[in-house]
Protein backbone atom coordinates (compact mmCIF):
# COMPACT_ATOMS: atom_id res chain seq x y z
CA UNK A 1 0.00 0.00 0.00
CA UNK A 2 1.31 3.46 -0.90
CA UNK A 3 0.24 6.44 1.21
CA UNK A 4 1.02 10.13 0.83
CA UNK A 5 0.80 12.36 3.92
CA UNK A 6 0.53 16.11 3.40
CA UNK A 7 0.94 18.36 6.45
CA UNK A 8 2.98 21.48 7.16
CA UNK A 9 3.97 19.99 10.53
CA UNK A 10 7.05 18.26 9.18
CA UNK A 11 7.92 16.50 12.43
CA UNK A 12 4.43 15.03 12.63
CA UNK A 13 4.28 13.64 9.10
CA UNK A 14 7.87 12.41 9.03
CA UNK A 15 7.30 10.50 12.31
CA UNK A 16 3.99 9.09 11.08
CA UNK A 17 5.71 7.93 7.89
CA UNK A 18 8.40 6.20 9.92
CA UNK A 19 5.78 4.42 12.04
CA UNK A 20 3.83 3.35 8.96
CA UNK A 21 7.07 2.09 7.37
CA UNK A 22 7.69 -0.09 10.45
CA UNK A 23 4.36 -1.72 9.58
CA UNK A 24 5.31 -2.37 5.97
CA UNK A 25 3.39 0.54 4.48
CA UNK A 26 5.17 2.63 1.86
CA UNK A 27 4.56 6.13 3.12
CA UNK A 28 5.85 9.42 1.74
CA UNK A 29 5.27 12.94 3.02
CA UNK A 30 5.01 16.48 1.74
CA UNK A 31 5.20 19.68 3.79
CA UNK A 32 2.69 21.68 1.73
CA UNK A 33 -0.10 21.26 -0.77
CA UNK A 34 1.97 22.00 -3.87
CA UNK A 35 4.71 19.54 -2.88
CA UNK A 36 1.97 16.97 -2.23
CA UNK A 37 0.44 17.52 -5.68
CA UNK A 38 3.89 17.17 -7.29
CA UNK A 39 4.51 13.89 -5.47
CA UNK A 40 1.02 12.60 -6.31
CA UNK A 41 1.69 13.37 -9.99
CA UNK A 42 4.84 11.22 -9.94
CA UNK A 43 3.62 8.25 -7.86
CA UNK A 44 0.40 6.33 -7.86
CA UNK A 45 -0.85 6.46 -4.25
CA UNK A 46 -3.84 4.54 -2.97
CA UNK A 47 -4.38 6.97 -0.11
CA UNK A 48 -3.63 10.61 0.69
CA UNK A 49 -3.81 11.89 4.26
CA UNK A 50 -4.22 15.65 4.06
CA UNK A 51 -4.17 18.33 6.76
CA UNK A 52 -7.02 20.82 6.42
CA UNK A 53 -5.16 23.98 7.42
CA UNK A 54 -1.89 24.60 5.65
CA UNK A 55 -0.14 27.69 4.30
CA UNK A 56 -0.67 28.18 0.59
CA UNK A 57 -3.08 25.61 -0.78
CA UNK A 58 -5.38 24.50 2.02
CA UNK A 59 -6.59 20.93 2.46
CA UNK A 60 -9.87 21.41 0.60
CA UNK A 61 -8.14 22.81 -2.48
CA UNK A 62 -5.51 20.06 -2.43
CA UNK A 63 -8.29 17.43 -2.38
CA UNK A 64 -10.00 19.03 -5.37
CA UNK A 65 -6.77 19.21 -7.38
CA UNK A 66 -5.57 15.73 -6.46
CA UNK A 67 -8.96 14.21 -7.31
CA UNK A 68 -8.93 15.89 -10.74
CA UNK A 69 -5.71 14.03 -11.57
CA UNK A 70 -6.35 10.81 -9.61
CA UNK A 71 -10.10 10.27 -9.21
CA UNK A 72 -9.55 6.87 -7.56
CA UNK A 73 -7.29 8.06 -4.77
CA UNK A 74 -8.90 7.83 -1.35
CA UNK A 75 -8.61 10.80 0.94
CA UNK A 76 -8.41 11.10 4.72
CA UNK A 77 -8.73 14.69 5.85
CA UNK A 78 -7.09 15.66 9.15
CA UNK A 79 -8.12 18.64 11.23
CA UNK A 80 -7.45 20.10 14.65
CA UNK A 81 -11.15 20.16 15.43
CA UNK A 82 -14.36 18.56 14.26
CA UNK A 83 -16.90 21.32 13.58
CA UNK A 84 -19.90 19.79 11.84
CA UNK A 85 -19.94 22.37 9.04
CA UNK A 86 -16.30 21.71 8.34
CA UNK A 87 -16.90 17.95 8.07
CA UNK A 88 -19.69 18.50 5.55
CA UNK A 89 -17.54 20.88 3.52
CA UNK A 90 -14.75 18.32 3.43
CA UNK A 91 -17.07 15.55 2.26
CA UNK A 92 -18.33 17.84 -0.48
CA UNK A 93 -14.73 18.55 -1.46
CA UNK A 94 -14.18 14.80 -1.90
CA UNK A 95 -12.70 13.50 1.36
CA UNK A 96 -13.63 9.88 2.07
CA UNK A 97 -13.11 10.15 5.82
CA UNK A 98 -11.94 12.42 8.58
CA UNK A 99 -9.53 12.28 11.51
CA UNK A 100 -9.25 14.75 14.36
CA UNK A 101 -5.79 15.59 15.75
CA UNK A 102 -4.30 14.16 17.83
CA UNK A 103 -5.24 10.69 16.59
CA UNK A 104 -3.78 7.27 17.31
CA UNK A 105 -1.93 5.43 14.57
CA UNK A 106 -4.39 2.55 15.01
CA UNK A 107 -7.22 4.89 13.95
CA UNK A 108 -5.33 5.82 10.81
CA UNK A 109 -4.45 2.18 10.10
CA UNK A 110 -8.09 1.15 10.52
CA UNK A 111 -9.14 3.71 7.91
CA UNK A 112 -6.34 2.67 5.53
CA UNK A 113 -7.43 -0.95 5.87
CA UNK A 114 -11.04 0.05 5.29
CA UNK A 115 -12.06 -1.24 8.72
CA UNK A 116 -13.56 2.05 9.81
Amino acid at each position, binding site marked *: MRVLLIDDEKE*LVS*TLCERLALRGIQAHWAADGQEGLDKAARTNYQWAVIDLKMPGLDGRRVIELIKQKQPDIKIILVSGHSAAGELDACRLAGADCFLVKPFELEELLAKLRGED
Partner: protein
Amino acid sequence: MSNAHADWQLLCRQGLEFFGRVTANLSHEMKNCLAIMNEQTYLLKELLEMEAQGRRQEPGRIQDLAGKIIERIQETDRVIKRLNTFAHSADEESRVLEAGQLLELVAQLYRRLAALKGLELELETPPASLTLTANPFFLEAALFACLDAVCQAGEPGRGPIRLWVEEGSDEVRFWVGGAQPGELEPGSGPAPGILQVLGARLESREDALGLELPRGS
Protein backbone atom coordinates in the same frame (compact mmCIF):
# COMPACT_ATOMS: atom_id res chain seq x y z
CA MET B 1 -32.51 49.48 25.19
CA SER B 2 -30.41 52.61 25.73
CA ASN B 3 -27.58 53.53 23.37
CA ALA B 4 -25.05 53.10 26.18
CA HIS B 5 -26.33 49.60 26.91
CA ALA B 6 -26.28 48.65 23.23
CA ASP B 7 -22.71 50.00 22.91
CA TRP B 8 -21.67 48.00 25.98
CA GLN B 9 -23.21 44.83 24.55
CA LEU B 10 -21.44 45.38 21.25
CA LEU B 11 -18.12 45.92 23.03
CA CYS B 12 -18.63 42.73 25.07
CA ARG B 13 -19.38 40.79 21.90
CA GLN B 14 -16.31 42.16 20.14
CA GLY B 15 -14.18 41.35 23.17
CA LEU B 16 -15.58 37.84 23.32
CA GLU B 17 -14.98 37.32 19.60
CA PHE B 18 -11.34 38.34 20.07
CA PHE B 19 -10.99 36.09 23.11
CA GLY B 20 -12.49 33.18 21.18
CA ARG B 21 -10.26 33.71 18.18
CA VAL B 22 -7.09 33.82 20.28
CA THR B 23 -7.95 30.82 22.47
CA ALA B 24 -9.03 28.76 19.46
CA ASN B 25 -5.71 29.55 17.81
CA LEU B 26 -3.65 28.73 20.91
CA SER B 27 -5.56 25.50 21.52
CA HIS B 28 -4.82 24.55 17.91
CA GLU B 29 -1.10 25.16 18.54
CA MET B 30 -1.27 22.97 21.65
CA LYS B 31 -3.10 20.23 19.78
CA ASN B 32 -0.43 20.25 17.09
CA CYS B 33 2.32 19.95 19.71
CA LEU B 34 0.44 17.08 21.39
CA ALA B 35 -0.09 15.29 18.09
CA ILE B 36 3.64 15.48 17.33
CA MET B 37 4.67 14.39 20.84
CA ASN B 38 2.18 11.53 20.64
CA GLU B 39 3.72 10.19 17.41
CA GLN B 40 7.31 10.70 18.56
CA THR B 41 6.69 8.99 21.91
CA TYR B 42 5.09 5.97 20.26
CA LEU B 43 7.91 5.78 17.72
CA LEU B 44 10.43 5.94 20.59
CA LYS B 45 8.59 3.10 22.34
CA GLU B 46 8.55 1.02 19.15
CA LEU B 47 12.27 1.58 18.51
CA LEU B 48 13.11 0.66 22.13
CA GLU B 49 11.02 -2.50 21.83
CA MET B 50 12.88 -3.43 18.64
CA GLU B 51 16.21 -2.72 20.35
CA ALA B 52 15.15 -4.97 23.26
CA GLN B 53 14.45 -7.71 20.72
CA GLY B 54 18.02 -7.39 19.47
CA ARG B 55 17.34 -5.23 16.41
CA ARG B 56 19.99 -2.52 16.71
CA GLN B 57 18.86 0.98 15.86
CA GLU B 58 20.86 3.68 14.12
CA PRO B 59 23.36 5.21 16.56
CA GLY B 60 21.95 8.38 18.12
CA ARG B 61 18.43 7.80 16.71
CA ILE B 62 16.82 7.25 20.10
CA GLN B 63 18.62 10.22 21.71
CA ASP B 64 17.65 12.38 18.73
CA LEU B 65 14.01 11.41 19.10
CA ALA B 66 14.04 12.00 22.86
CA GLY B 67 15.60 15.43 22.24
CA LYS B 68 12.81 16.32 19.81
CA ILE B 69 10.17 15.33 22.36
CA ILE B 70 11.82 17.56 24.98
CA GLU B 71 11.83 20.46 22.50
CA ARG B 72 8.11 19.97 21.88
CA ILE B 73 7.36 19.86 25.60
CA GLN B 74 9.19 23.17 25.95
CA GLU B 75 7.26 24.59 22.99
CA THR B 76 3.95 23.50 24.52
CA ASP B 77 4.99 25.10 27.80
CA ARG B 78 5.63 28.39 25.96
CA VAL B 79 2.18 28.24 24.34
CA ILE B 80 0.54 27.62 27.73
CA LYS B 81 2.46 30.54 29.30
CA ARG B 82 1.29 32.74 26.42
CA LEU B 83 -2.30 31.63 26.99
CA ASN B 84 -1.95 32.34 30.71
CA THR B 85 -0.52 35.83 30.11
CA PHE B 86 -3.31 36.54 27.65
CA ALA B 87 -6.03 35.26 30.00
CA HIS B 88 -4.74 37.53 32.80
CA SER B 89 -4.87 40.57 30.53
CA ALA B 90 -8.58 40.78 31.33
CA ASP B 91 -7.89 41.02 35.10
CA GLU B 92 -7.62 44.80 35.31
CA GLU B 93 -9.30 47.61 33.42
CA SER B 94 -6.12 49.63 33.34
CA ARG B 95 -2.47 49.11 34.20
CA VAL B 96 1.03 50.20 33.27
CA LEU B 97 2.20 48.22 30.25
CA GLU B 98 5.58 47.84 28.58
CA ALA B 99 4.91 48.60 24.92
CA GLY B 100 7.51 46.09 23.72
CA GLN B 101 6.20 43.22 25.85
CA LEU B 102 2.65 43.87 24.72
CA LEU B 103 3.61 44.02 21.05
CA GLU B 104 5.61 40.81 21.41
CA LEU B 105 2.66 39.02 23.02
CA VAL B 106 0.28 40.10 20.25
CA ALA B 107 2.81 39.03 17.60
CA GLN B 108 3.11 35.62 19.28
CA LEU B 109 -0.68 35.29 19.48
CA TYR B 110 -0.96 36.02 15.77
CA ARG B 111 2.15 34.24 14.45
CA ARG B 112 0.43 30.96 13.51
CA LEU B 113 -2.38 32.78 11.68
CA ALA B 114 0.23 34.75 9.74
CA ALA B 115 2.12 31.54 8.96
CA LEU B 116 -1.07 30.01 7.56
CA LYS B 117 -1.06 32.89 5.06
CA GLY B 118 2.62 32.26 4.37
CA LEU B 119 3.59 35.52 6.12
CA GLU B 120 6.37 36.19 8.62
CA LEU B 121 6.23 38.75 11.39
CA GLU B 122 9.19 40.95 12.23
CA LEU B 123 9.21 42.82 15.49
CA GLU B 124 11.29 45.89 16.30
CA THR B 125 11.34 45.76 20.08
CA PRO B 126 11.27 49.20 21.70
CA PRO B 127 13.22 49.91 24.90
CA ALA B 128 11.71 48.51 28.12
CA SER B 129 11.39 52.07 29.39
CA LEU B 130 8.61 52.77 26.87
CA THR B 131 5.44 52.28 28.89
CA LEU B 132 1.85 53.40 28.75
CA THR B 133 -1.22 53.06 30.95
CA ALA B 134 -4.11 51.34 29.20
CA ASN B 135 -6.64 48.53 29.25
CA PRO B 136 -4.43 45.54 28.37
CA PHE B 137 -7.17 43.31 26.97
CA PHE B 138 -8.64 45.88 24.61
CA LEU B 139 -5.21 47.14 23.58
CA GLU B 140 -4.28 43.57 22.63
CA ALA B 141 -7.60 43.32 20.74
CA ALA B 142 -6.88 46.56 18.87
CA LEU B 143 -3.32 45.55 17.92
CA PHE B 144 -4.52 42.09 16.90
CA ALA B 145 -7.13 43.71 14.63
CA CYS B 146 -4.46 45.98 13.07
CA LEU B 147 -2.23 42.98 12.49
CA ASP B 148 -5.15 41.03 11.03
CA ALA B 149 -6.04 43.87 8.63
CA VAL B 150 -2.46 44.20 7.37
CA CYS B 151 -1.98 40.43 7.07
CA GLN B 152 -5.26 40.04 5.17
CA ALA B 153 -3.84 42.50 2.64
CA GLY B 154 -0.37 40.92 2.67
CA GLU B 155 0.95 38.46 0.14
CA PRO B 156 3.68 35.86 0.69
CA GLY B 157 7.01 36.73 -0.86
CA ARG B 158 6.70 40.48 -0.37
CA GLY B 159 8.76 40.57 2.79
CA PRO B 160 7.73 40.32 6.42
CA ILE B 161 4.91 42.10 8.19
CA ARG B 162 6.64 44.58 10.52
CA LEU B 163 5.57 45.71 13.95
CA TRP B 164 7.14 48.68 15.67
CA VAL B 165 6.45 51.44 18.18
CA GLU B 166 7.06 55.19 18.03
CA GLU B 167 7.28 57.28 21.15
CA GLY B 168 5.80 60.77 21.28
CA SER B 169 5.94 63.24 24.15
CA ASP B 170 2.48 62.32 25.46
CA GLU B 171 1.52 59.44 23.21
CA VAL B 172 2.63 56.07 21.90
CA ARG B 173 2.08 54.90 18.33
CA PHE B 174 2.02 51.21 17.52
CA TRP B 175 2.52 50.44 13.83
CA VAL B 176 1.89 47.39 11.73
CA GLY B 177 3.18 47.61 8.16
CA GLY B 178 4.16 45.59 5.19
CA ALA B 179 1.08 45.48 2.98
CA GLN B 180 1.37 47.17 -0.39
CA PRO B 181 -0.10 50.66 -0.92
CA GLY B 182 -3.84 50.76 -1.33
CA GLU B 183 -4.37 47.15 -0.34
CA LEU B 184 -5.80 47.64 3.14
CA GLU B 185 -9.53 47.06 3.21
CA PRO B 186 -11.42 50.29 3.91
CA GLY B 187 -12.69 50.23 7.48
CA SER B 188 -10.38 47.39 8.50
CA GLY B 189 -8.70 47.45 11.88
CA PRO B 190 -10.10 47.71 15.39
CA ALA B 191 -13.81 48.36 15.99
CA PRO B 192 -14.70 51.96 16.90
CA GLY B 193 -15.96 50.91 20.36
CA ILE B 194 -12.59 49.37 21.22
CA LEU B 195 -10.78 52.52 20.07
CA GLN B 196 -13.13 54.55 22.23
CA VAL B 197 -12.45 52.48 25.36
CA LEU B 198 -8.72 52.96 24.80
CA GLY B 199 -8.99 56.66 23.92
CA ALA B 200 -7.05 55.64 20.82
CA ARG B 201 -6.95 56.93 17.28
CA LEU B 202 -6.37 54.87 14.17
CA GLU B 203 -3.80 56.20 11.72
CA SER B 204 -3.29 54.97 8.24
CA ARG B 205 -0.21 55.34 6.08
CA GLU B 206 -0.21 53.94 2.58
CA ASP B 207 1.45 50.73 3.70
CA ALA B 208 0.75 50.58 7.43
CA LEU B 209 -1.89 50.88 10.12
CA GLY B 210 -1.09 52.71 13.31
CA LEU B 211 -2.70 53.02 16.69
CA GLU B 212 -2.06 56.20 18.65
CA LEU B 213 -2.74 56.14 22.40
CA PRO B 214 -2.11 58.57 25.20
CA ARG B 215 0.67 57.32 27.48
CA GLY B 216 -1.60 57.91 30.46
CA SER B 217 -0.60 58.76 34.01
